């Protein structure tokens, strides 16, 4: 049996129907109409110990609901879930000792006091033995570079500094599983890099299983080998990122610097645009390979410089969402 085993989990929310206008407001005051929304619909997957899984999908796809179910905050209407041999919502106290959760949009640090005080309190909450606590804490301080910021009231920290403290706070009790809900939201490039490097290291050194939700696709490319894509509460894709790329990444951008004028029509060239120094081409690599194109081109024009760009993964995801109509 896998470390995390999710079987056919469903969760429906009842939402009161709201219509605009005063008349409708009175009507709904007297008689509410409800709408059942399936936030999570028959989701199954399993994750092995030590995996990093990117859990992606558009807003409202059911990502947060799944995370809440897996972390034991919500219980599903139906389905089973065994994580490290426990059912999260049934053995809450025992289970939550094994997990760490970082919500990118919600802080768990006390606003008016330094992060270190929060850490000390967490030590008592999780009943971490003093020795273990100190070594874990020092390790985190070093790896996340917290030394200079740990004694400043949290409200005075920048977002990037705060996020590093948040991550440290979630790891003090050395959890086996770490849920990261948009951990890089709003961070600058340097902080993002630091957080990603740290997560990678953590996974490698401690075999921590990591489930990551994000809208930043570069998080996924640098961290996760496997992704689970959900939309409208259903699992749409579960597999390696590479395979998904092969399935979808068929557009390549080529920009050519040349003084000659180019007149080319060939199967596989999606678009051709003239710019100041030459041309921008978009080709479908399934129909025409890059080398093929270059041979054709070099026969016709003299190429001064050439730049080849893969399709950005964000754009690929957009197309993916479109294909699945989510």
């Amino acid at each position: 049996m896998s470390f995390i085993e999710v079987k056919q989990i469903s969760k429906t929310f009842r939402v009161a129907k709201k219509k605009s206008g005063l008349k409708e407001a009175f009507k709904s005051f007297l008689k509410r109409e409800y709408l059942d929304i399936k936030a999570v619909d028959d989701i199954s997957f399993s994750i092995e110990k030590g995996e990093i899984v990117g859990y992606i999908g558009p807003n409202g796809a059911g990502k947060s609901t799944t995370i809440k179910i897996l972390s034991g905050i919500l219980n599903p209407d139906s389905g089973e879930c065994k994580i490290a041999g426990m059912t999260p919502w049934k053995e809450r106290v025992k289970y939550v000792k094994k997990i760490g959760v970082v919500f990118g949009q919600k802080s768990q640090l006390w606003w008016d006091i330094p992060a270190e005080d929060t850490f000390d309190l967490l030590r008592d909450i999780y009943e971490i033995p003093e020795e273990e606590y100190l070594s874990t804490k020092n390790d985190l301080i070093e790896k996340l570079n917290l030394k200079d910021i740990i004694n400043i009231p949290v409200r005075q920290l920048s977002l990037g500094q705060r996020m590093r403290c948040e991550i440290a706070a979630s790891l003090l009790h050395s959890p086996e599983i770490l849920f990261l809900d948009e951990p890089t939201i709003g961070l600058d490039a340097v902080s993002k890099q630091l957080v990603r490097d740290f997560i990678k290291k953590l996974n490698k050194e401690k075999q921590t299983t990591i489930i990551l939700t994000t809208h930043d696709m570069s998080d996924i490319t640098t961290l996760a080998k496997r992704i689970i894509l959900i939309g409208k509460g259903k699992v749409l894709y579960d597999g390696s990122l590479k395979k998904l790329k092969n399935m979808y990444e068929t557009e390549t951008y080529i920009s050519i610097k040349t003084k000659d004028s180019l007149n080319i029509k060939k199967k596989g060239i999606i678009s051709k645009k003239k710019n100041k120094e030459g041309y921008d081409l978009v080709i479908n690599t399934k129909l025409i390979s890059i080398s093929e194109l270059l041979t054709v081109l070099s026969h016709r024009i003299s190429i001064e410089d050439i730049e080849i760009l893969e399709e950005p993964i964000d754009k690929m995801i957009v197309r993916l969402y479109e294909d699945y109509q989510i």
Partner: protein
Amino acid sequence: MKIYFKSLAMHLKGELEYRVNFILSFLSQILVFFTYYFIIIALFAKFDNIKGFTMYEVLLCFSIIQFGFSMNEVFARGVDRFDRLIIRGDFDRLLLRPRNIILQVLCSDGDFVKSARVIQAIIVMIVALLHLHIEWNIMRVITLLLMLLSACIIFFGIFLLAASYCFYTVQGLEVRNVFTDGGKHMAQYPIGVFSKGFVLFFTFIIPYAFVNYYPLLYFLGKKDTIIYGLSPLLVIIYLLPCIIVFHLGMKRYSSVGS
């Protein structure tokens, strides 16, 4: 318990960060709340008793209720402001920690400015006691302590009920104030001064009468039966359904979400 006191210390630390604000709020609390006591004094300038209760007797009753209420405002602020915990989504965070939820809610907030009211209540109580000619004996001391304790417990129970209400809806929070603030204002007077229906309601539905009426009668020597003096103990039983209701609400929360 250690966690609780540590959290309180941290809240205090946080509050003291804003020093001027803390001092000014503390002073204004004292000034504003003395007006409550002045109302009673003004009332008794017109009448010398209300249904047989003298001014100092009413002040004693009043200060005990204030004491219980304010103690909860200081030490159980998290329960009092539970709606904020739900609205902000911070309650989810508590569910992720391996501790009892009510304990964690208690830890989540503290309001030390309100300790001004506690101090004030104690001062008024002492003044009232000095003016009343009490024949002190051990039973009377126990009764007085029980009254203070049960005042704290009953408001905790009521705060907890009000908090449970937040699991169902965070709209229309005024409803719960009827029971917390409204109840407090009623209970500041010996329940006996009200009509019989009120007495029954506040005996059996929200047992304020066991806090400040039956024991008060014993304490002041108006009734001799010891049962009256020990009646505050019944309030502890009242806490039980309050805790159960809170846990039911929690169950609902985890199946419904926000």
